[in-house]
């Protein structure tokens, strides 16, 4: 039996049908990401689990107990918000101790737990400071400490890194994952950033328009998207109508859409005869350097596709150059 189960969850905001029958199971200790574009219902699902929103239909089971009608306090769930939501009039230590005080723990126990948790997030020296004296990343770590000090049954992270700059964000991704693994705490992370989801998750649930579009490990979702939406969202796929892709590679495709990862297409010197390999030709119309990769846009018969190669200054191609490319047919995903 799964640790958390969402059974036929529907949520309406007036006329707006935000969640359209979500069925989802999460195992204990798993790091799960709800991924999707803005407005797809991922935060609403998280808020339904926390008790901050009531579900319109369906049940939520946590560790065998139906918690659908429980108040947030009764659910014993920890949550970290996008805007930190720290209490500005309290020091770091008091923010972290707040939940424990509400549970009427003894002063000694509160002090000990606060110290332990602040050490875990690397902020033991900041305990007497106020939130306004901390950086964004530090504030988010305090918010994380405030949630985990309660030893919650589930930790919910609602886009906690979206207000933080890129470098700090990468550090915090690693930090959050390290803490989650150490505490073995079941964690649900909400994000619209597929790279972040790939880095952090055991399992990703991709949401689209209030429904789960696809679930799987990051590798499964990236390598085998089940739909055009998933392919479009999960990576920088070349997503083309079948007929158009056929025109590019001068072969007939009857499926509705074709998805090919840009890195699956490689530039070669000459056409070969191998089985299961498709050769294509075209003219480079633009080139973008993305640090360690080079992205070429190649045009043929009025159709454009992208190909990514590792950056190598000695084999760099020029715009206007005619090139030959190859792709293994198993990497050409035919989607309906």
């Amino acid at each position, binding site marked *: 039996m799964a640790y958390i189960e969402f059974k036929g969850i529907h949520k309406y905001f007036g006329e707006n049908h935000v969640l359209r029958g979500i069925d989802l199971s999460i195992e204990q200790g798993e790091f799960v990401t709800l991924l999707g574009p803005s407005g797809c219902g991922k935060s609403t699902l998280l808020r339904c689990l926390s008790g901050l929103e009531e579900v319109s239909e369906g049940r939520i089971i946590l560790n065998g107990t139906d918690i659908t009608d429980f108040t947030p306090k009764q659910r014993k769930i920890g949550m970290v918000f996008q805007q930190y*939501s*720290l209490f*500005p009039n309290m020091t770091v230590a008091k923010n972290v101790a707040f939940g424990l005080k*509400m*549970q009427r723990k003894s002063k000694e126990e509160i002090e000990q737990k606060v110290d332990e948790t602040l050490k875990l997030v690397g902020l033991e020296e900041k305990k007497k400071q106020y939130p306004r004296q901390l950086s964004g990343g530090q504030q988010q770590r305090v918010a994380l400490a*405030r949630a985990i000090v309660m030893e919650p049954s589930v930790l919910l992270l609602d886009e906690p890194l979206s207000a933080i700059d890129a470098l700090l964000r990468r550090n915090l991704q690693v930090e959050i994952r390290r803490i989650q693994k150490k505490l073995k705490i079941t964690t649900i992370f909400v994000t619209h950033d597929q790279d972040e989801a790939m880095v952090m998750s055991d399992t990703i649930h991709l949401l689209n328009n209030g429904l789960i579009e696809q679930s799987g490990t990051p590798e499964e979702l990236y390598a085998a998207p089940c739909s055009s939406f998933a392919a479009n969202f999960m990576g920088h796929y070349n997503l083309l109508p079948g007929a158009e892709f056929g025109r590019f590679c001068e072969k007939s495709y009857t499926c509705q859409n074709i998805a090919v990862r840009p890195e699956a297409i490689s530039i070669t010197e000459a056409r070969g005869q191998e089985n299961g390999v498709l050769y294509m030709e075209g003219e480079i119309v633009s080139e973008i350097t993305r640090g360690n990769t080079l992205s070429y846009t190649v045009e043929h018969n009025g159709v454009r596709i992208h190909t990514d190669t590792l950056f190598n200054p000695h084999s760099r191609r020029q715009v206007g150059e005619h090139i030959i490319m190859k792709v293994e047919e198993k990497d050409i995903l035919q989607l309906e």
Partner: protein
Amino acid sequence: MKKSGKKRKKLLPGIVLTLCGAFMLLPFLVTVLYTVVKSWTRLMPSGYTMKFWIKVFSEGKVIPAVLRGLLISIAPVIATNLIVILALYVAIVYNPKAEKFLQTLCMVPNTLKGVIIAIPVLSMYAGNPTVLGDRIFMLSCVYCVCILPFVYQGIRNNLHAINVKQILEAAEILGCNRLRAFLQIIVPNMMSGILVSSLLSVSCIFGDFAVIKIIAGNKYVTGQMLLFSNRQMLLQIQCVIVVLMFMVTLALSAVAFSLQNRKKD
């Protein structure tokens, strides 16, 4: 060259601020000086005396009047703050749409001045055998209405600077109920706004005599009323009362701001 340029740049704002401060303080300083002069008919005073201060303190009329003025100023401010904070709590937590209605309601006294409110209130409730007929109660209620715009705006501006909804949700998840979270977390963060608007309201009421005159007549004599009804008294005595009232307001402001600064530290 550069150093002298920098010095000059620093000096100029200092001079301008000192001049402005001196300009604003001058009337007060002259008033204070006037309380201790025997007479001032030529360029310089003819002599100095403390007799007017001694007279004011020994008569025992002025100090109670100033304190009464203070009391009637503070009580409505506290009441209005409580009412507005609770109303805004309900609006934010349970019915965000009500906030607009609340805003409109609180802004109405901007167009209806105290004197306009006082007259119908008096004609409606004078002679009422219940507490509503009590002049001091009536006066307090009218002041509550008069200061609504200041109090509401101060609190509202502060509330909008904090993400109230999410902070309350965070507290709720941590096991705190919303009202407690509001009082324990949100209200302390609004203290600067509450203090500023309260001071504004206190000074507004403290300086009023028209509404008191209409509603309370001679039953509740404040410093302002004393000044108004004893216009024949010696100018030096009047100045002592004015200085006393100013000192009371100043002390109140100092206490409020020191409290606020202590919180910030």
